[in-house]
């Protein structure tokens, strides 16, 4: 009986010859990630355990991206604590200030997360790196402390679900729409404790940016990880970025899946997930007349250069509606620079956008774009829970960058087809 890619990566890192779902294993981690919200608790736990040195200064990654640029004195203190630790421990991959990018956009771009890796991060969207053919999963701060201390962590081997996606995508449909559609079908706990493996001829043609958006939101279906079997697209993406060896693991043809779901991608329209769950997705054409106050284009889900190019195509020679605050957040300094070179930032400014430095702030209702009571935002982000972007009486609608750009122009939920 064969194994899935998820099982093979776990097996290799646990140094086992056989593995099966449900089994508890201890496995070596290649990357352990923390940010300014989760690392302070991890550092405190690390010190309580008598920790002196992290297991490997090249494998612990600390990114100050959530409440930065520092929102207030408390957040400045949290960053100060992490900075002190990073300097004392001589952490190779420590990012802040002008180097910082939104962690899940930054790590793949910098070649820190690679195919075949086992990656844990004290941030639920760590599952993003599954797009590269890595096993990547979100954990809490105590888990991060344990991994920083020992270089290992316990895992329960998940069952795998296979999503076979086939057919050609309609105009303006992206990876974001595929994942919103899938979460809409299976629910926010539809993949609870499981691995979501995405495959099929549609997936073969998806860009890495689209794959990263999809793997990013596996957690919104409750999954332990989302994963793509690496291929030529993966190789092209990683070969110039990687500074160490990486491994392509493939799922065996006789691997066992708990569920197999076939999806006809050709029938999927651009999606919008209504408040207050990512699973409340429906076709944007059926959204009705819903006025918006804010449109946010950015985040670890959709703040990549490909996303900004799509938004700029729609916003070219257009303006956001006078009552809409349009916020664009390039996810990393490299993306910011590239967007500047390509003239995208000029397009955004001319459209009336505020351009934010790379930060998670607005997405999680931290700072840089908070909603008041009764306000509505459409966002390319990943969560629309109650109070996610501000006041508990505000609302968040999730969509792809094209829909968020078109909605900004029309001042209500709208697909790009309405602007044509």
């Amino acid at each position, binding site marked *: 009986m064969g194994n899935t890619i998820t099982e093979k990566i776990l097996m290799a890192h646990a140094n086992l010859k056989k593995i099966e779902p449900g089994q508890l294993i201890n496995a070596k981690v290649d990357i352990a990630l923390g940010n300014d919200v989760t690392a302070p608790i991890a550092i405190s736990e690390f010190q309580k355990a008598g920790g002196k040195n992290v297991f490997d200064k090249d494998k612990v990654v600390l990114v100050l991206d959530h409440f930065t640029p520092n929102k207030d004195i*408390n957040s400045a203190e949290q960053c100060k604590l992490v900075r002190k630790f990073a300097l004392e421990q001589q952490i190779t991959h420590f990012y802040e200030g002008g180097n910082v990018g939104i962690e899940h956009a930054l790590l793949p771009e910098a070649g820190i997360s690679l195919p075949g890796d086992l990656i844990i991060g004290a941030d639920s969207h760590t599952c993003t790196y599954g797009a590269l053919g890595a096993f990547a999963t979100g954990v809490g701060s105590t888990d991060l402390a344990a991994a920083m201390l020992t270089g290992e962590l316990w895992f329960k081997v998940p069952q795998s679900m296979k999503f076979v996606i086939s057919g050609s995508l309609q105009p303006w449909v992206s990876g974001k729409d595929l994942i919103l559609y899938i979460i809409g079908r299976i629910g926010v*706990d539809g993949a609870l404790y499981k691995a979501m493996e995405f495959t099929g001829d549609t997936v073969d043609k998806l860009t890495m940016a689209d794959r990263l958006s999809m793997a990013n939101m596996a957690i919104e279906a409750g999954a332990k990880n989302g994963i793509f079997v690496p291929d030529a697209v993966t190789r092209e993406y990683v070969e110039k970025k990687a500074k160490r060896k990486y491994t392509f693991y493939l799922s065996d043809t006789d691997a066992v899946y708990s569920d197999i779901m076939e999806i006809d991608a050709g029938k999927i329209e651009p999606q919008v997930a209504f408040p207050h769950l990512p699973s409340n997705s429906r076709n944007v054409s059926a959204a009705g007349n819903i006025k918006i106050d804010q449109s946010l284009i950015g985040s670890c889900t959709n703040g990549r250069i490909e996303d900004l190019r799509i938004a700029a195509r729609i916003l070219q020679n257009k303006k956001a509606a006078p009552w809409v605050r349009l916020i664009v957040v390039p996810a990393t300094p490299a993306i910011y620079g590239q967007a500047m070179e390509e003239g995208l930032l000029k397009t955004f400014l001319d459209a009336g956008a505020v351009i934010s430095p790379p930060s998670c702030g607005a997405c999680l209702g931290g700072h840089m774009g908070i909603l008041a009571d009764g306000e509505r935002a459409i966002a390319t982000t990943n969560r629309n829970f109650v109070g996610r972007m501000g006041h508990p009486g505000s609302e968040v609608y999730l969509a792809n960058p094209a829909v968020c750009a078109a909605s900004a122009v029309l001042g209500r939920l709208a697909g790009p087809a309405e602007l044509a």
Partner: protein
Amino acid sequence: MIFQGRVWKFGDNIDTDAIIPARYLTTSDPQQLALHCMEDADPRFVGKIKPGDIILGGENFGCGSSREHAPIAIKAAGLSCVIAKSFARIFYRNSFNMGLPIFESKELWPAVNDGEEITVDSTTGTIIVSGGRKSFRINSIPPFMEQLIAAGGLIKHIAKKYNG
């Protein structure tokens, strides 16, 4: 262990933004976090609970972000444990790792009212309601998780290995 207290019921998919909104994550001080426990699910929650009270969630309790601030806020607010029909996986892991007792039961939710007193006996795996007139089984805890609880959490469990 015995946990005794009034239950406070919540629905399905209570996410970590509801348990402790991100706007309060500029600190990891347990007492500060406790002041806002469950705020976006029930703004009056902190004012009505007494030490030892119990949260009773529906399916997928603790979904969303990985913030360990969620179980920290619950524990520091004085709640003794959380029972739910099911838990989201990172919340489940975090609770065992940091020492918040959590139990799974699908049957309890429809059988009790808000504010009703219950007793949970984790040794025998039972929940007693209405002074013993009704009782329910807790889903059993995997042996490894029992080891974590016995050690006092993940850090104490691995510290022995690390320092040994």
